[in-house]
Structures are given as C-alpha cells and as structure tokens.
C-alpha cells in the first residue's frame, strides 16, 4: 500500500499529515514499520519531524550530451530533435544547456557522425536511514540552482524499495506540475491536504484533477478547520471526494509543529485518529 500526500497549495500541512500518518503506523509492535519517502526534493523537511539517522547516501545525476567538435558537422539534427531546446546549433557553434536537458538521449541517437557522448551531470543526492520509531526514511535533495526535480524523485522511488507488505508514505512537493505527478505516480491512494480558503480550494481542484487523470482514488483532509469558508466542503460533496479528517486551527498545534513535533506528539488522541484514517483508506482502496 502506497499513500501519497499532496495538496496543490503549499503550506497546507502535507508534511504534518504525512509524518503523523507514518508515525501512527509504528505504534502497533506487530506491524512492519512504514517506508517514508520525502519527495519534496526542492525543500525536504520531513526529517525535522521524524528525526531519522541517515546511513546511506547516493548522488543523483542525469546523462547529458557532450559534443566532440572534431566529429561534429553542425548539421543541426540534435537541436531539431530536442523537445526542450537544450542544444542550440548556431552556425558552426553547438551549445549544450545542461539546465534545460531532460536526459532523454534523443540527440545521441540521431547524431549521424556519433559526435555526442553522454556524461553525468550532478543534480542532487539521495539519503536513507531509520528513525527511533523504526520508520525507514528516505529523502531526495535537489542541489541549489538546479531546476530539474523529476529525475531526483524518480531515482529516489527506484532506490528506496518497500519490503513485501510494507506501507509506503510519500510526502509530495506542493503544486501540480511534473514533480508532483512523478511523486503521485504509482500511489494506491492520494491524500489531499487543504485549507478551507478560496486559495486552498483553487489548488485542491487542480490536485483532484491529477488524481482523476492518474486514476488514483483520493480523499481530503481539511487542515486549519474553522478558518475561511465552506467552499472546500461544498466542492468535496459535489464531486464525491470523501473528507477523511479535520484538523482544527489551533495554537497548540502551531506551537508543537514549530518545535518539530508531529500531531501524535502534540495531542495523543491523533494516534487513534490516524490509525482510523489508515483503516478508512485501506477500505477505500480495497473497494477499487
């Protein structure tokens, strides 16, 4: 079972929910502790709440073209085939723009004189370890200044393999662009954390479309319940998105989160609430 936590709007409480859900799955000693993947590679922060000790590290790089000028005839075929305009042929000059390259390898395939060799371009790193509670924790980190988050997320998912029967909790990045789609791909359930405001609703609708497009069942958690308006509830009812939990707008939660605590540590009642949430998600997934 793989549950991905996403939101659309940033700052709605994805990491609060994902880390609390993961921790709630460690309280029953008979269960295998979950695997946690922090896929918010541009700003990973789940480690602040789950406090893992990292034991393994791996570089992430993408193969990008390198042009051998002695073999290049400036024919321009590489620039024509490149969907992302990462190669420019300007007269006799051939330029590679590493930050635009998606590493697809098409330029190498079409080069008639075999003037292109693929070389690794370092993008970031992966780290893995475990927490005192037994959670297997992995995160990806995109290097500062690098724009390409997807290869880091893709390699993190490949590198951190779940054991048979192990629950996987994925903390996705905000938004609904490529890095989110890559984080959500392969999930059995998409947990959408939102806040009851027009901005929260606007982005919830986009995130719900991602779930629909990828044909993944989804449910909603309303965080900061009590602020804003009833737009999110009305929308959820209209499109039959189940509201699975409400987390109140509460000073004690804000203070605890600022100290790096999960909801379970802030208020013990959340242990049972998150266990119930997991059972409800399992029930929805089993019906699919």
């Amino acid at each position: 079972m793989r549950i991905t936590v996403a939101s659309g709007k940033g700052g709605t409480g994805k990491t609060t929910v994902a880390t609390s859900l993961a921790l709630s799955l460690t309280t029953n000693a008979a269960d295998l502790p979950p695997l946690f993947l922090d896929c918010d590679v541009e700003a990973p922060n789940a480690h602040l709440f789950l406090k893992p000790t990292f034991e393994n590290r791996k570089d992430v790089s993408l193969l990008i073209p390198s042009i051998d000028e002695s073999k290049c005839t400036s024919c321009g075929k590489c620039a024509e085939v490149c969907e992302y305009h990462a190669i420019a042929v300007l007269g006799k000059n051939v330029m590679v723009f590493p930050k635009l390259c998606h590493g697809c390898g098409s330029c190498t395939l079409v080069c008639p004189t075999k003037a292109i060799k693929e070389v690794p371009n370092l993008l970031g790193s992966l780290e893995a370890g475990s927490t005192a509670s037994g959670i297997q924790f992995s995160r990806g980190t995109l290097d500062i200044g690098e724009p390409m988050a997807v290869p880091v997320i893709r390699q993190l998912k490949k590198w951190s393999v779940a054991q048979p029967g192990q629950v996987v909790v994925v903390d996705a990045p905000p938004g609904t662009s490529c890095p989110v789609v890559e984080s959500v791909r392969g999930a059995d359930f998409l947990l959408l954390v939102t806040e009851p405001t027009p901005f929260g609703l606007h982005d919830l609708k986009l995130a719900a479309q991602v779930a629909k497009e990828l044909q993944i069942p989804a449910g909603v958690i309303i965080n900061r319940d009590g602020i804003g308006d009833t737009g999110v509830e009305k929308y959820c009812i209209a499109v039959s998105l189940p509201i699975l939990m409400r987390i109140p707008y509460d000073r004690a939660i804000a203070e605890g989160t600022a100290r790096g605590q999960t909801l379970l540590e802030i208020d013990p009642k959340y242990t049972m609430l998150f266990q119930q949430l997991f059972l409800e998600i399992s029930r929805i997934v089993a019906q699919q």
Partner: protein
Amino acid sequence: MKITITASSPSLDAEFDPRFGRCAYFLILETKTMQWEAFPNPGINASGGAGTQAAQFIAKQKVSAAISGDFGPNASSALNAAGILMYLNKADGNIQDIVKRFNAGELQQVSAPTASGSHH
C-alpha cells in the same frame, strides 16, 4: 544592417513586445531600406527553452542585432555564440519609433543576461 525587433503583431506600427523568448512575432528588417518581414515566434508555447529556440531561429535569418526588453541567461549565451548583438528597448512606442532610436544610437547594447530565466 539586418535586425530583429520583438513585436506584438506583424506590422511596422505594431506595439513592441518586451519579451524575447516568448514574444508574439519577430519583425526582421533592413535598417537602410526599411524592408521588413514578420515571423511568428515558433517557441511561444514551448514548454521550456524558448530563449534558446528563439536565438536559433533568428540566427537562421542571419540578423546582426536583436532588440528586446530583456534577454534571459540561455538566450544571451546563444545570441553571443551566434555573434548577434543585443540591444535593450525600455521606452514605449511602436516598431518604427524603436528603429529610429536604434539608428540614432540611443539603445543600450548589452552583452550579458538582463533578466533571470523564467523556467518553471
């Protein structure tokens, strides 16, 4: 001198388009004769790399200079490699006004990026 100006429509009376990689049209004209031709920007809807695509397109048209509102880092490197000079226009006016200012030497020439890329 053969130059290109980023324009919002295909005409000498067109409003200037201050974006380089995402402009609507490249108006290419010979400053001596004022003979002109307009090309729709092939990269206006590119998912990325609009600047490098635009630079390659105008390099194929063999222009010597490009006038726009800003040049991003990729466009700037590509234009430099192609030997195309970059000039900034920051004032209002139509394409003809900008050509006049260019001919009078009033436009600032730049050799480095003037804006950060708008990668998403």
